[in-house]
């Protein structure tokens, strides 16, 4: 009987207003995408938090592993020349 009564997990992303990106807000359980969208509206937009919703099955997300944090992300730490403050421009030049 209880072959599989638990629904699939979906990650929910909401654009709170035009001009902003969709932002991860949490997850929920739903049997299919239509229901996931409709639940996301009921669960995460009870206070007009959104103008657009994305739902993605959690299992479809490929993520970096925390073990790879150092090789992936520390190399950019020393590339300080990518940041504007690296360059000394005389104040007289004005805003650049």
């Amino acid at each position, binding site marked *: 009987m209880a072959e599989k*009564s*638990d629904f699939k997990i979906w990650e929910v992303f909401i654009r709170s207003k035009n001009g902003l990106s969709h932002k991860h*807000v*949490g997850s929920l*359980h739903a049997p299919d995408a239509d229901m996931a969208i409709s639940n996301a509206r009921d669960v995460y937009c009870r*206070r007009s938090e959104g103008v657009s919703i994305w739902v993605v099955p959690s299992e479809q997300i490929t993520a970096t592993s*925390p073990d790879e944090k150092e090789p992936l992300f520390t190399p950019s730490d020393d590339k300080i020349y990518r940041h504007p403050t690296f360059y000394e421009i005389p104040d007289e030049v004005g805003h650049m």
Partner: protein
Amino acid sequence: MGEEYSLEDRFQQYVEAENKVEPKDWMPEKYRQTVIRQMSQHAHSEVIGMQPEANWITRAPSLRSKLILLAKVQDEAGHGLYLYSATETLGITRDELINQLQTGKAKYSSIFNYPTVTWADMGAVGWLVDGAAIQNQVMLCRTSYGPYARAMVKICKEESFHQRQGYEIMMRLAAGTKEQKAMAQDALNRWWWPSLMMFGPSDDNSPNSAQSMKWRIKRKSNDTLRQEFVDKTVPQAEFIGLTIPDPDLKWNEERKSYDFGEMNWDEFYAVVKGNGPCNKQRIINHIKAHEEGAWVREAANAYAKKQQARKKQSAA
């Protein structure tokens, strides 16, 4: 062995520096267990807490109060869901969590094992129970486990209307007819002590507390939170002319805080162990809804599977 020790050590330094722990980061197994236990207990409390309030939705005395109460209980469901979803990031399924609740392995806040017998209880629950919960939740917005902290931020934002809703009910009753005022006082009498006990045993008797504080899961001790709650709530009761049912309650000028009487811990432990007026009823109702919904969930899954197969077929 030595390496394990150093990982734990690094973890400790990491959380002490106010860094957040994210789902796939390394964490001590005991930390994971503690966070799961606490978050799921919190989620279950939101969900079981729907029952005593849903009890009055159909009897709310005005359309306005009916809408507000329904919206509030719906929020609790939403908060339960945020918290289940945060707990699931640690690799436990909602099915397992619900199973733990229904078999009594997981606890929920004992306060919900008391009955809501009059409309004033909707006021007292909102004002006192949500008030005590918020005290705790504000602290948890800074908890070390990232998904928990994020869920709490959202919950705190939404809960802010709950306590005000409860207080408004009390305020109206206290300013109403003689019967209404008596109803409000009676509710305060019944809910005051159980609300204070929501913060848990006093610090000397709370063995898990110290470790949770060390890991920055909990940020304040039970007694500190309880004292803050009393100090905030007493003037609110006075303002609407209700009396806190504690003869030992008095302002301590030295501590700039209220001294208050001893709680009945025998009752507390009896209710925690299952002997409150509503423990059985709450779980029976939860199991009933879950079991009666099984065929619905199965059907929805079966339909989703069929739809997917159809899509594949038409794409082929």
